[in-house]
């Protein structure tokens, strides 16, 4: 494989490497017919990233591997993986790359066993890096984003503005969507007091999204660190970001794409929403009943400012709320009174409450009606009345096929959209 990246695209490429480095330990390097794919998966296999740099991004692109074809399919496409540290060595300083690099030659020579990056810089300086690599098979996450019911599209700035408000030490973040609002809130799974002392929550209005399709009301909880890595990349790419998701335990897919230029898919695992977790979530929700008020307030704001989306996005920051929640027990009386208030307001019959308790997920998926929040509150209240809080289970869905040999294969199962021509 041989290709040359022009100066304008080197920074994007470098930024992609930095993004991959934040997620995985190895970068899978796959020259495909339509472009160069860089992939990584993190150690716990809960995050997968695939960048596809299409032919048009390069001055010259010879993938040189399709020569051997069987029934029209290119076989033996040479693939390798490189340690992230190695790649970072090449693209260490983004600022100096932006300042001085004039072009970047990438040369993968199977016979010579060398992956060579040659950066041609100003003042005639040439930096050549001959990297060691490991031959390997392709990796592919199992996902089909086009089949997912929920799609959001927005400027990356919107998400960046939200994420910046969350504590740097926070590990996971929940995205809760209904047809009338999008909430992002901090997520903690342990019961220790320190992690419960601050909760952060932000509410976004659907109008702030360029594309807003919610087929299923749901909560998805995923790694904030990974989201930050994605947003750091988007910062350079300056193009809208798309989210595809279904529900807890199913992958959440972020896509950043510039037609015929490059595409990045980020697949993040989400925490499985079992009964307990939804109850707990609801418990929290009922404790923070004033949230509804906040959302209403935001609607008013949005109503006034509906002409400009960017202004709306800025206002959304004021909707952030952090709630001091000390011990569950101390908050309970307060929370329960609030939730009662809410359920009186919204609940239709006690029967509804019981049914919802057992089949909450299914019900939610089926109708996706605006009544759901009220039902949730009802569940929450039900939960509060029970003195012992059930043990909370935290299971990350592994969406990769198990790997037989750590050194080599990761089974390819997916109808992955990266392969499409």
């Amino acid at each position, binding site marked *: 494989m041989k290709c040359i990246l022009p100066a304008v695209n080197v920074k994007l490429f470098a930024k992609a490497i930095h993004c991959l480095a934040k997620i995985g330990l190895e970068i899978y390097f796959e020259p495909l017919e339509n472009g160069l794919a860089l992939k990584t998966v993190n150690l716990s296999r809960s995050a997968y990233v695939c960048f596809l740099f299409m032919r048009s991004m390069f001055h010259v692109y010879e993938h040189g591997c399709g020569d051997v074809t069987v029934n029209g399919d290119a076989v033996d496409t040479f693939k390798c993986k490189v*340690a992230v540290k190695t790649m970072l060595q090449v693209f260490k300083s983004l600022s100096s790359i932006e300042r*001085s690099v004039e072009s970047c030659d990438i040369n993968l020579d199977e016979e010579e066993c060398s992956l060579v990056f040659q950066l041609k810089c100003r*003042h*005639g*300086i*040439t*930096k*050549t*890096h*001959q990297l060691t690599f490991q031959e390997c098979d392709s990796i592919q996450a199992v996902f089909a984003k086009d089949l997912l019911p929920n799609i959001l599209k927005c400027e990356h700035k919107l998400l960046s503005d939200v994420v910046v408000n969350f504590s740097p030490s926070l590990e996971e973040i929940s995205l809760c969507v209904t047809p009338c609002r999008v909430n992002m809130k901090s997520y903690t799974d342990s019961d220790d007091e320190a992690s419960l002392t601050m909760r952060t929550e932000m509410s976004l209005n659907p109008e702030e999204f360029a594309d807003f399709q919610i087929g299923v009301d749901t909560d998805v909880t995923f790694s904030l660190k990974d989201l930050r890595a994605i947003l750091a990349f988007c910062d350079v790419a300056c193009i809208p970001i798309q989210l595809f998701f279904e529900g807890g335990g199913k992958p959440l897919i972020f896509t950043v794409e510039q037609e015929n230029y490059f595409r990045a898919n980020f697949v993040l695992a989400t925490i499985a929403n079992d009964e307990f977790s939804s109850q707990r979530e609801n418990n929290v929700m009922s404790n923070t009943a004033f949230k509804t008020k906040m959302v209403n307030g935001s609607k008013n704001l949005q109503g006034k400012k509906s002409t400009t989306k960017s202004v709306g996005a800025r206002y959304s920051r004021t909707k952030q709320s952090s709630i001091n929640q000390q011990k569950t027990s101390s908050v309970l009386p307060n929370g329960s009174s609030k939730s009662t208030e809410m359920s009186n307001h919204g609940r239709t019959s006690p029967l509804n409450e019981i049914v919802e308790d057992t089949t909450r997920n299914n019900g939610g998926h089926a109708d996706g009606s605006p009544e759901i929040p009220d039902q949730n509150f009802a569940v929450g209240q039900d939960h509060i009345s029970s003195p012992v809080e059930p043990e909370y289970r935290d299971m990350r869905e592994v969406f990769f096929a198990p790997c037989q040999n750590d050194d080599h294969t990761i089974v390819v199962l997916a109808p992955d959209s990266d392969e499409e021509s």
Partner: protein
Amino acid sequence: MDKTNKLFFGTNMVLLTQNEEERYAFNANMNNARNLSHILKAIHFKDTATVFVTENGMKVTVEDAKCIQANAFIQAQVFQDYIIREDSITFCINLDILQECLSIFGSNPPSVTAMRMMYNGYGTPLVITLEEDGAVTGCSIKTQEPDQTLDFEFSAANVINKVIMKAECLKEAFNELDVTSEVLQITMSPDHPFFRLSTFGTLGQSHHDIPNTSDMVEFFECNQTQSNRYRLSLLKPSVKAVNLATKVCVRMDHRGFLSLQYMIKNENGQICFVEYYCCPDEELENNDNQF
């Protein structure tokens, strides 16, 4: 305000040293202590430094592993007053403590600390008086028996290859060196690749080429191709110097010994030099035989 400071300092010093001045073998005064501490930063990779004082100026030497030597030259002109009553003075001093004393009032640009340095010969401490905004600090640093410093016998006559370039491009190269590599190989040659820095790390090889035609290169005189390896751990301290320098002169003699001369400008626009000498690694020849 600066002027009044100096006045105050001056009068104060006169009172203090009127009769003592006679006594001191070495007595020097500097308006801005940063001019000294800035240069010393470039060679500060070991605690112990040997100081040589002659009528031309001061030379501070730091060595490590008998393989690398760094010299900082501070000419007499950099000092406002410079009196030496002996032919030459040599002593050892803890560089850490000296640097700490020099920046006792902080080392940020807006403030200016005036300094007087006095030494009264073998066995006596180095006395430093610092003054800023009327506040005076007196420091007395114990000196040590001078060490024998290495003589690299590096003479200009034996230099085979010499390149002078702007520090900027070497700065980038030095800061990006692959730290997993044990050695830094420097190749200088009259043909391609002209000037090459190579590292051989666990992650692969890297080469940094600077051609003779680059506008970063000011002088290029290479007579024959030379390629020598130097311990990266030994050369690493010179990154401190390159970060402060404006120009760098790289020379290699017939034995492969390396000389790096850094030109460093101080705040008064005066030029000081810092020089690093480094022995080559013998390993290269062994490697050549093996492969």
